[in-house]
């Protein structure tokens, strides 16, 4: 088989059809690229996609915050952190010196009434929510490099908790499920309306990528039954929309979501990313149980990478790639993001060795 372009390769991988090699893609913590640029490995302004020859390129062009014109308000500031009220009325504490998940301090919306007053009326398909220029430029760059170009954004689980917090969202699923369903329906409709506007003016991507963190350490946040009742209808609608336009769908979830995988497959998702090993996800087990119906991206334990030991990295790759490449449905990626403890040379080796093991020719 001759060498494929990134577009051809990922299209086939998502259908588990023959390819020349496995795919390759990655996410990085923001500090990592800064460090590698400072060390001279990456040129300032050079993209990771170009540098490492990735097969995919993403663009996140939507802003779904409720109050678009709201300037985030700094409520409190220390040398290391900032407490900020955002356009969803959420009060979040963020670290200034490094990447970190924010502390959820308070939420204006804690029930249906607050949602209906403070958020829902503002969630209209305003053109100002779309970064047309970023989408156009990323699409052009991906086309020039023959990379698979995916619209990326969050789906309903990841849209609701920034508004009301995990605790109110999750208890709301029991106490007032109709409120949560109203939120999922509202965000789904808004996403589809904005996609209609963007795609009709700028053209379609090659695929759609939804970020949707539904798990944590060794557990999903909700049961498969609750997923099916409350979340899956939105996943079905958004996936059906994409697939009706010939666009395959990749879904990202951090945490342990293995019990939800049957529901994710029912929703029509083509590929599951990121298979977080430290949360309990098992790439080989998922491949064994669902590899005939689902492609995978990720599942390489990032803790192995920050040993910066080539033999250890090689063991991780050798243990997994020969197995999961068997049906052509795998893209090399860490199990989350590359932190700055990983040396540039270690990551370079990870990609090179992964491509050697993942070659079908």
């Amino acid at each position, binding site marked *: 088989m001759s060498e494929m372009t990134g577009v051809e390769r990922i299209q086939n991988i998502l259908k588990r059809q023959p390819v020349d090699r496995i795919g390759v893609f990655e996410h990085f913590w923001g500090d990592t690229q800064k460090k590698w640029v400072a060390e001279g490995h990456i040129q300032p302004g050079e993209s990771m996609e170009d540098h490492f020859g990735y097969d995919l390129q993403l663009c996140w062009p939507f802003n779904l915050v409720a109050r678009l014109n709201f300037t985030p308000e700094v409520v409190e500031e220390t040398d*290391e*952190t900032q407490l900020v009220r955002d356009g969803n009325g959420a009060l979040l*504490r*963020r*670290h200034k010196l*490094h990447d*970190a*998940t*924010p*502390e*959820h301090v308070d939420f204006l919306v804690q029930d249906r009434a607050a949602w209906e007053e403070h958020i829902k009326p503002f969630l209209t398909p305003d053109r100002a929510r779309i970064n047309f220029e970023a989408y156009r430029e990323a699409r052009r760059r991906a086309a020039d490099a023959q990379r698979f170009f995916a619209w990326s954004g969050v789906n309903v689980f990841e849209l609701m908790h920034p508004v009301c917090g*995990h*605790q109110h969202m*999750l*208890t709301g*699923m*029991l*106490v*007032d499920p109709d409120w949560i369903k109203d939120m999922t329906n509202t965000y789904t409709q808004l996403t589809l309306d904005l996609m209609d506007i963007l795609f009709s003016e700028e053209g379609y991507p090659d695929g759609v990528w939804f970020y949707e963190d539904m798990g*944590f*350490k*060794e*557990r*999903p*946040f*909700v*049961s498969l039954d*609750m997923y099916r009742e409350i979340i899956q209808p939105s996943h079905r609608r958004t996936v059906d929309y994409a697939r009706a336009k010939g666009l395959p769908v990749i879904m990202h979830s951090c*945490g342990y979501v293995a*019990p939800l995988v049957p529901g994710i497959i029912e929703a029509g998702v083509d590929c599951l990313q990121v298979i*977080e090993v*430290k*949360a*309990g996800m098992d790439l080989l087990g998922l491949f064994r149980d669902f590899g005939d119906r689902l492609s995978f991206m990720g599942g390489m334990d*990032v*803790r192995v990478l*920050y040993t910066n030991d080539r033999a250890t990295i090689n063991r991780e790759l050798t243990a997994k790639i020969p197995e999961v490449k068997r049906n052509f449905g795998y893209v090399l990626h860490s199990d989350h993001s590359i*932190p*700055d*403890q990983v040396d540039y040379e270690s990551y370079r080796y990870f990609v090179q060795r992964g491509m050697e093991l993942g070659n079908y020719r």
Partner: protein
Amino acid sequence: MSSIVETIAMCVERGKVNKTSPYPPDLKGQDGADELTAQALADKVPANDILTKGLMIGMGKVGGKFSRNEVFVPDLLMAAKAMTAAMKHLKPYFESGEAKHRGTFVVGTVQGDLHDIGKNLVSMVMEGGGFEVIDLGVDVSPEKFMKAVEEHPGCAVGLSALLTMTMVNMEKTVKLIKEKCPSTKILVGGAPLTEEFCRKIGADSYSPDPQGALDYLSTVYA
């Protein structure tokens, strides 16, 4: 017929907070942990019995179900809400000494880390398990943990971390506490943690879930 204390345990286990709460649907319109605890105290049921035979039993049952993946985070949160509604009635009895905590649990997310969901879940389960919880919040320095240990003699400490980069601060915290107060039991948890890391840094217990942490402390404070 079940006693009022057993009914309180059932309300906590099933997340029945109060009469106005529509959840769970089959108990709609009935008294919840809030009203029943007030009623039990009015009926002269000892506060400590309400704690140990009602609230702790209910939280223990839901915590066990959570560990076995029979219920999920929403159910655990509702149980914690029910327990909190009951605990507000017991507060004066803790202050007078009529009801007693099993021990004190100092908990926080380590320095550099702002994640709080896991820490909050552990705090809820520990409180439901009969422990006084001193929540130091997030981004807590080793010195602040140490100060809390000195202020609460005999306490156990829980350290949470989400980020791999902050695990080093967990190690520093364990080292400081163990140097100054070696008998303090230290529990660790969080996404990147393992039993191996727990042993390496000299902490006493690692658990992937809140009930495991409570089970460990229950043996320490037996």
